[in-house]
């Protein structure tokens, strides 16, 4: 067993419902300083419910123990390398948590008067400006709540522009390496999806693109660097092809951690793109969210951005709701403001040079892993990689061990696995993104673990197939879960 981990006791814990006892409570409210009101009288008896059946009844100490115990069953960035490709699991600075909790920000109501919201508005304006500078675009909306939401916003912007030009068109082109949110988004925005196959370098096949790019095409959704971590070196030509057909280029900015300070999408032909604040800009993933998916656009798309827009009015910020061409709102209020605060804090901490250095380190770390592992795992695409590297389980599959098994075995070695089975163009993908915040020490431990597992597969593939061994929960039966779904507690 590896030197990275050792098993230790963790507390078991029942579900809250199972530990409930009638009458227990974890709260106390201040005494009411006004007369009590009879609910049935005020609301009508038919509108008043009985007690919420099954709802937990536990004490304060039981609550804190419950969630503390649960938390110890999780892996997290705070515990070690989390090399999920495409997810940019970098360190989440704690000062960002502190500033997001400042009373004046955390307790600001979205409808409080503009004169009493200048701090929030300044934060948003400054973040918009910084993101425009980083992406090389002209305007930014902060309203979308996550990457996929940003994609939708972006495609709707394209649709609005094309409608304005007379024809919203019918199709969106998407490389076969794209993330699932891209086609799902295009469909929700009312477009048919046409897949573009990748060439042998894993990048967009120019010929295939040129063939597909007809007058029905509204846009190309391209990820750059793509999901192989490879820069689309023909990106300028790609954009030219699209533009020449009156179509636009949408860039999925999930992989901006490879580009910040090095290359700007606005400079290579992109018309609209989203950013994932919860990836590139270090806001914590929190077990799946929240995120932030700002969309940056070229000037031509600016009139269509969701309202309201921030505008300067004398020395103050004001909201401009009169945006006749706007696609409307994509979310209530102004976006995931608390996430925006954290992202701005990250940008302020780094500054321009710091952001660029982070990019360099992110790419260097990924290249390092590639160098150390390419003798042991199949590398289906040989083009230079940027912030992540994608191997395949080709060699290991011959011994009957798949990428998912290797992932589970990595857990025993003390690591969170890489992204499994994505992108789809790699059969049995191992998609590894270390990020810049990992130390050489941690990277080396990971490399050693991967090599050790490759060795184990040679000697005893079956052993690896049944991993993990040292976790409190052994391999989870996902098939049964899906076959007869139990998605709530029924006692």
């Amino acid at each position: 067993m590896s030197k990275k981990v050792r098993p230790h006791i963790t507390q078991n814990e029942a579900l809250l419902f199972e530990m409930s006892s009638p009458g227990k409570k974890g709260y106390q409210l201040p005494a009411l300083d006004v007369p009590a009101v009879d609910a049935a009288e005020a609301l009508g008896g038919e509108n008043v419910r009985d007690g919420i059946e099954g709802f937990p009844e536990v004490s304060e100490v039981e609550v804190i123990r419950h969630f503390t115990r649960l938390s110890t069953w999780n892996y997290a960035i705070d515990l070690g390398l989390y090399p999920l490709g495409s997810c940019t699991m970098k360190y989440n600075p704690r000062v960002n948590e502190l500033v997001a909790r400042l009373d004046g920000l955390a307790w600001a109501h979205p409808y409080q008067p503009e004169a009493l919201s200048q701090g929030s508005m300044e934060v948003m304006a400054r973040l918009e400006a910084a993101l425009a500078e980083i992406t090389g675009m002209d305007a930014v909306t902060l309203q979308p709540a996550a990457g996929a939401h940003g994609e939708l916003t972006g495609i709707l912007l394209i649709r609005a522009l094309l409608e304005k030009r007379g024809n919203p068109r019918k199709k969106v082109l998407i490389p076969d390496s794209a993330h699932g949110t891209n086609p799902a988004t295009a469909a929700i925005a009312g477009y048919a999806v046409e897949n573009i196959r990748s060439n042998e370098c894993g990048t967009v096949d120019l010929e295939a693109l040129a063939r597909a790019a007809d007058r029905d095409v509204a846009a190309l959704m391209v990820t750059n660097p793509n999901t192989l971590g490879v820069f689309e070196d023909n990106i300028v030509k790609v954009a030219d092809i699209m533009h020449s057909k009156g179509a636009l280029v949408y860039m999925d900015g999930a992989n901006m951690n490879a580009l910040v300070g090095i290359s700007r999408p606005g400079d290579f032909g992109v018309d609209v793109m989203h950013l994932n604040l919860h990836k590139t800009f270090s806001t914590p993933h929190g077990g799946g969210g929240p995120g932030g998916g700002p969309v940056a656009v070229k000037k031509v798309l600016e009139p269509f951005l969701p309202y309201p827009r921030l505008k300067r009015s004398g020395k103050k910020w004001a909201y401009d709701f009169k945006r006749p061409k706007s696609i409307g709102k994509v979310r209530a209020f102004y976006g995931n403001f608390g996430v925006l605060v954290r992202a701005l804090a990250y940008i302020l901490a780094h500054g321009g040079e710091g952001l660029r250095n982070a990019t360099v380190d992110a790419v260097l770390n990924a290249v390092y892993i590639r160098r150390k592992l390419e003798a042991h795992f199949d590398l289906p695409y040989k083009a230079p990689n940027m912030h992540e590297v994608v191997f395949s389980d080709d060699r290991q599959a011959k011994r009957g061990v798949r990428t998912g098994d290797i992932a589970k075995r990595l857990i025993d070695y003390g690591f969170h696995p890489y992204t499994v089975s994505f992108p789809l163009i790699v059969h049995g993908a191992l998609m590894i993104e270390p990020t810049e915040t990992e130390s050489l020490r941690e990277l080396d431990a990971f490399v050693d673990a991967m090599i050790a597992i490759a060795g184990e597969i040679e000697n005893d593939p079956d052993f690896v197939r049944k991993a993990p061994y040292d976790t409190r929960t052994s391999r989870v039966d996902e098939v049964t879960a899906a076959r007869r779904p139990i998605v709530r507690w029924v006692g």
Partner: protein
Amino acid sequence: MLAACGLESAEQLFAHLPEEVRIKQALNLAPGASEYEIVEYFRARAAENANGYASFLGAGAYFHYRPVLVDTVVSRGEFLTSYTPYQAEIAQGTLTAIFEFQSMICQLTGMEVANASMYDGSTAVPEAAMMAARITGRRRVAIARTVHPEYRAVLETYARNQGMPLEEFGYEAGSGLADLEDLERKMTPETAAVIVQSPNFFGAIEKVKAAAEIAHRHGALLVFVFSEAVSLGLLEPPRDADIVAGELQSFAISPAYGGPYAGIMATKEKFIRQMPGRLVGETKDSRGNRAFCLTLSTREQHIRREKATSNICTNQALIALMATVFMSVYGKQGLRELAEQNLAKAHYLAGKLKLRFSAPFFNEFVVSANGKAPDEILRGLLRKKIIGGLALGRFYPELADSVLVCATETSRREDMDTLASGFQSE
């Protein structure tokens, strides 16, 4: 490390990028700042916002007390800095908590299944509408004008591009409730969903059963929306609804100038496969221990791509966890007492004001400005350090003389008295 990579300089890492795409000059951003300066910067911004005001704003974002444990729990790195629980063996903490969340949302709403969260209440509404369209095979949607105007605006954005015609039905001028006769008139054989919110944007309790009856009679689904989750501690849950889409901000989530919040979606078991968003299910591990994992992901974009039930990927997991801790702390008894306190405070305040509508209300209601300009009244109150509510003209031109006022358990009697006197006196 460079040497180990066969490189001489970091620049070489980017040598494969075409020259034309490389940045020519450094980013024009301020130099990196220390923690100290960052804190100072945001303290200064926070000071530019409202501070020390008693606020009676609600309208989709409510001031409720937040149990300290909530922040204690979500500040634990194991919850804060983990990703979506794809690797169940090292994510049982998050998975178990989501399972509890889903269960509590079911208990609260009277539904049979609930997902792991949506972005917020506003985006849950179009997701519910699209889900209803998938289930019914119809495209039209009828929505009450008493639904939160911003939720309606978001639905509008989605629906327009989805080719889903939207029909709004009005409200009764007297009661402030959705005009169900108008709804009846607007129902068509193509109507997939009827959408009502309760308490509605005016704080009034809608006749959900009657709306459901109309919807169902026309073969449509009823989508029930809520923006004030605390009301569910006291109000009859929407058992007649087919889909529930709501906002949990009231459950320990600070208003945070509009987000991040947590949306929910709940429905009947039979519709589970049409539901958007992540779901956690119960199963066993290879040793036979109870375990949880993400399930039914064939509905989702990463498997089904353009045929997915939604494009949602990242959701609001940590915020949903906050709500879960909140629900655990308050529990059965506490949630009811909390709702009762809200009811009492709002009715105390309402008793001192001229109400615009007659329907029963929970913790929000519309106040008539008595012929005065709402803005003037609100400005006067600001001078007394009171944010008096939301002038409704912005969303309802016909209510330009009215203010939406909210009182919660955090509203102090003396502040309510001041507010009331601001509406009454010169």
